[in-house]
C-alpha cells in the first residue's frame, strides 16, 4: 500500500499528476475499515443501521451511540472515525436548527445534505486541516417524502435507495441490490437489514446492532429502534439465516 501516492499524498491541498487527491482517498480508507453501516429508503420511511463492533467486554450496552437525531424529522448514522462523526453530526444539528430559525420550517433532506457536504468538503481544501474520516448517512422524512443521502469524506453527496459502507460493504451492497426497496416498508427493511448485518459480519468478535428509523409508523419522527423490537427483529433474522444455511447444505 505505501508508495502509491509517494510525494503527492502529504497534504490535501496537493493534486497528484493523474489528478487524484490522495489524502481524500486515504480518508475513505478509514471508513472502509470500520464496522458496516447501512441505509435503506423505503416507501414509508427510511432506515439506518450500524454494526457496532465490540471494542471492549467492559463496555456498557448502548453507550457507543452511532445513530443521532438531527431534528425531529431527520437523523444520521456515521461510519469511520467516530470522533469525526460526532463533529459532523453537531454541525448538521446546528444547520437544521438554524434553518428552522430562519425559515420557520423543518430543513428539507436535500438542503441538509448539501450543507453537510459543503462543510465536509471545506476540510478537503486547506493544508492546515485534514479531511473527516467519515461517511455520513442522512435520513429524513418531510413533505418531499422519505429521503436518504450519503456524504463521503471528500464532501460528495448523493441520494440513494440503498447504500452500504464499511468492512462488509461488498456483501451488503450485493444483498441490497436484490431488494426492491421502493416497494418495501420500513418494518420489512428492518428485518432485511438485520439479516444482512449478521450475514456480512466477519466472525470472531461479537457486535451490537443499532437500528434507527423515521417512518409513517413513528409519526415521521426519527427514533432509535428499542431493545425489545430489536431483539425480535434480530431473532427472526438469525432464524432466517439458519434456515437458508440448512437449505444450502442439502
Amino acid at each position, binding site marked *: 500500500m505505501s508508495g502509491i501516492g509517494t510525494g503527492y499524498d502529504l497534504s490535501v491541498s496537493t493534486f497528484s499528476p493523474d489528478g487524484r487527491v490522495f489524502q481524500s482517498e486515504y480518508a475513505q480508507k478509514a471508513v472502509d475499515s470500520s464496522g458496516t453501516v447501512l441505509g435503506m429508503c423505503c416507501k414509508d420511511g427510511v432506515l439506518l443501521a450500524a454494526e457496532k463492533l465490540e471494542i471492549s467486554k467492559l463496555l456498557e450496552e448502548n453507550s457507543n451511540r452511532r445513530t443521532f437525531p438531527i431534528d425531529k424529522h431527520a437523523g444520521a448514522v456515521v461510519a469511520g472515525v467516530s470522533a469525526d462523526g460526532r463533529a459532523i453530526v453537531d454541525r448538521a444539528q446546528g444547520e437544521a436548527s438554524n434553518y428552522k430559525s430562519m*425559515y420557520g420550517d423543518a430543513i428539507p433532506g436535500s438542503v441538509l445534505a448539501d450543507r453537510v457536504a459543503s462543510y465536509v468538503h471545506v476540510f478537503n481544501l486547506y493544508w492546515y486541516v485534514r479531511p473527516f474520516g467519515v461517511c455520513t448517512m442522512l435520513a429524513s422524512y418531510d413533505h418531499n417524502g422519505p429521503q436518504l443521502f450519503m456524504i463521503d469524506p471528500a464532501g460528495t453527496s448523493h441520494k440513494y435507495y440503498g447504500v452500504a459502507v464499511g468492512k462488509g460493504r461488498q456483501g451488503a451492497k450485493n444483498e441490497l441490490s436484490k431488494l426492491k426497496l421502493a416497494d418495501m416498508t420500513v418494518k420489512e427493511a428492518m428485518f432485511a437489514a438485520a439479516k444482512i448485518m449478521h450475514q456480512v459480519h466477519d466472525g470472531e468478535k461479537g457486535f451490537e446492532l443499532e437500528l434507527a428509523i423515521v417512518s409513517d409508523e413513528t409519526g415521521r419522527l426519527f427514533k432509535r429502534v428499542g431493545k425489545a423490537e430489536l431483539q425480535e427483529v434480530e431473532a427472526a433474522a438469525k432464524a432466517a439465516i439458519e434456515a437458508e444455511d440448512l437449505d444450502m447444505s442439502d
Partner: protein
Amino acid sequence: ESANGGASGGPHTGTTIVAVAYDGGVVLGADSRVSTGTYVSNRASNKITSLCDNVYLCRSGSAADTEAISDYVRFYTSQHISETQQEPIVKSVASILYQMSYNNKGLMAAMIVAGYDAKEGGQVFGSPIGGTLVRMPWAIEGSGSTYIWSFFDDEYKEGMSQGETEQLVLKGIAHAMARDGSSGGIIRLVTVSKDGVSRKVFQGKEIPLVLGDMAEPQTNAATVVW
C-alpha cells in the same frame, strides 16, 4: 400612519391594507394613497408587492422602510429558492420578513404577508409594528383598518369562495376609504391561488358606494356622483 401636521419624516402610506384567506388561495387588497403630511404625493401607488411567485406583501407605515424591507426579503427569498430548488412555503417567506422586522425595531412597518403553497393552501400572516408574526384567517393593517375591524369581525366567514372573498375585501377597503382621510384613490386586489396570480384594479364606479347615513344620490343634471 400620517405625520404630525406638515410633512415630517417623509412619505407615509396612510393606508388600508387587507388580506383574507379562502380555501384554495388568498386575496390581498389595498388602497393607493401616499401622503406627505396633507399632500397626497401619490394617488395611485401600489402597496401590494411580490416577494416571490406565490407570496405577496401588503405594506403600510413608512413607505421607505417597507420598500427597503421588501427588497431585502425578496433577495433572501430568492436565495432560499436557489438552495431548496422548490417553490417556498408561505411560512418561510413570512419567517424571513419576521427576522428583519423583529431585529430592526426602529423600523415603522406594519405589513401583511399572504400567499399560496400546496402544503397549507392559502395563508395570511400578520406582521404588525414590532415584528410579531402570527398566522390568521384574515388580517388588516394601516390607519384605515381601525374603521373596519367590526366589519370584518361580522362579515368574514369560513369557507368562502374566491369571488366572495374578493367582494369582502373590496367592500372592507371601500368602507375604510370612506372614513379615513389617509386612505383613498383606487383599490388594488391581488389574488394568489394554485392557478397563479391575478391583479385587478378598481376605480371610480367600480368601488362599492359607501353611503352610510347619506341619502341615495338623485341623478339629475346638477348632481355629479363621481
